């Protein structure tokens, strides 16, 4: 059954149209990779699905779990099980990681009519998930992402995902800025969270990540449209020929060629 149906989605930022008709269906338990050069609209798609108001949806429809996703505020989407792992996790000085995550989890649980976790149960849960991500527990008492290294920030995203247990996880260039060891760690964390009732959209520029998080489907995005879809072998094909092999260029290059 389709968990997510994106139909002819158009979105713009300012006067610039970035998504020009995206159609994509993701069934429960599937992992879809979205690849594409810089400026193709990958991150925009991720942010639009999470509800960032910087982007204005100008057309199309997104049905999530039978509901109109675009009608919901970002927090409602999160409570309904949508999770975005940010490309650039935001530093929030003055808010401790622990407080933030407890507030978030209890909001999600409340929405699902589950009892809120007390401090002890929460701490036990968090410790278990931190082990999964091989994270230092000292990070819990630090302000959210503040002073974290690039790798720590990305791990913190997946750690949050492990705690919040979403139904739809959108990973926005989770591999960017990671060395190979950090990449493996993050990928292991993601793989441990794969489940028959959990779907994932993995947005990436490089095929490298997909060696570790093996997708069921790969879609290539260019100039705001999906121009090619296939199985995991499409990623390997791209690795050999590059985007240019498909006649696709970075946004700026494309503009120059036009």
């Amino acid at each position, binding site marked *: 059954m389709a968990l997510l149906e994106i139909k002819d989605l158009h979105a713009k930022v300012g006067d610039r149209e970035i998504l020009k008709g995206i159609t994509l269906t993701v069934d429960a338990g599937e992992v879809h990779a979205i690849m594409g050069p810089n400026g193709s609209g990958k991150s925009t798609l991720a942010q639009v699905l*999470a*509800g*960032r*108001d*910087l982007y204005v949806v100008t057309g199309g429809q997104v049905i999530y779990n039978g509901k109109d996703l675009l009608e919901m*505020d*970002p*927090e409602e*989407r*999160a*409570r309904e099980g949508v*999770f*975005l792992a*940010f490309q650039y*996790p*935001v530093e*929030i*000085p*003055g*808010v401790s990681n622990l407080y*933030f*995550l407890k*507030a*978030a*989890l209890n*909001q*999600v649980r409340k*929405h699902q009519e589950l009892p809120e976790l007390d401090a002890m149960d929460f701490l036990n849960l968090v410790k278990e998930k931190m082990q999964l991500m091989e994270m230092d527990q000292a990070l819990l008492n630090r*302000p*959210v992402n503040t002073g974290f290294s690039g790798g720590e920030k990305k791990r913190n995203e997946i750690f*949050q995902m492990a705690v*919040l247990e979403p139904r739809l996880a959108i990973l926005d260039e989770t591999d960017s800025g990671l060395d190979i060891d950090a990449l493996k760690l993050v990928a292991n964390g993601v793989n441990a969270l794969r489940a028959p009732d959990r779907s994932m959209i993995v947005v990436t520029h490089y095929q490298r990540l997909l060696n570790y998080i093996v997708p069921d489907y790969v879609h290539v995005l260019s100039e705001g449209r999906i121009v090619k879809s296939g199985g995991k072998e499409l990623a390997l094909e791209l690795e050999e020929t590059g985007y240019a092999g498909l006649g696709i260029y970075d946004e700026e290059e494309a503009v120059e060629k036009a």
Partner: protein
Amino acid sequence: MTAATEQIGNWLEEFTGQAVSPLQKVRDAGFQRFAELGFPTTHDEEWRFTNVAPIARTKFRTAQSGAEIRIPKGAEKVEAGAELFDAARLSAEPNAFVALNAAFLAEPAVIRVPKGAVLEEPIEITYEASANVEPLAAHPRTVILVGANAQCTIVERYQGTGRYLTNAVTEIVAGEGAIVDHYRVQQESREAYHVSSMQATLGRNANFSSHSISLGGALVRNDAGAVLSEGTEATLNGLYIANGTQHIDNHTAIDHAKPHGTSHELYKGILDGRATAVFNGRILVRKDAQKTDSKQTNKNLVLSDDAVINTKPELQIFADDVRCTHGATIGQLDAESLFYLQSRGIGRADARRLLTYAFAQDIVDRVKVQSLRDSLERILFEKFHE
């Protein structure tokens, strides 16, 4: 009669109604100076953004300053003689409110920390006003004399109910090598006028830090000043939170009189509704004060379209081998941070509160007295959940 003389006439009636005091000489000098100066107007540069007309227009009855003083082991209360309050200095005093405070000097809280004493517990002074029938004016005076190499913490609290004026003057004198940590928490009623002047005179190699938290009051003006000697380190931090039609003005003045002094200043403000605030940070580096290192920062978080902040650094540097930096920011809640919190399931209103609280957090984190820090956290938490 002009408005000004009428205003002074009201105060004269109260002034002459006081019982004669051993401090009468000081009072007389104070009133004379007040009568010369009159209340400031917005034509005075120092008061440009703060209109004290509501104070000047009100006829206040003199209140007993209801002080509750807790003196810890190692410190002592001193009977104040007139010699403590230098009449010559008063006659040069440019601030009418300070002069008025002297005119109504009644039971100044004078506390001495002997040379070399290290106090375990803070000196706590709470001024409580209660004006439920008619407007009252209190003029609390606090003097803390800290001997050489002594260490102490001072906590001043101002609170009350009803419509009243608190016109407070605090003087702190720290001897050579003394370490003084000062806090003032202003939680006056929402109808109150609060005018204060805190002046610290600091000895060689003394280390002084002052934290001014302003939460209450309808019309508030705080002057905080420090005069540094050679090798002195001074910190002036502040947090002001205003909403509704509150007006909070913080003027600071740091006087680097001698070489090798260091000063840090961090004032943060949160403004909502139609509140207005002023920050004016004066730093004077005198000709002799070479190798001065001074840093001033004022950050403002403006939550509504109608709130106004006037911020101004005022640097006067007469030495040539110094480092002085200053910066002021006025901003709103960060949209990226809001979205990040919302994207994890935290509602928009809660996310705004969390970020607002976080903005104030680094001032609260600098409070070293655990019980005070806890109570501030509680106060702020409740404030942002109103």
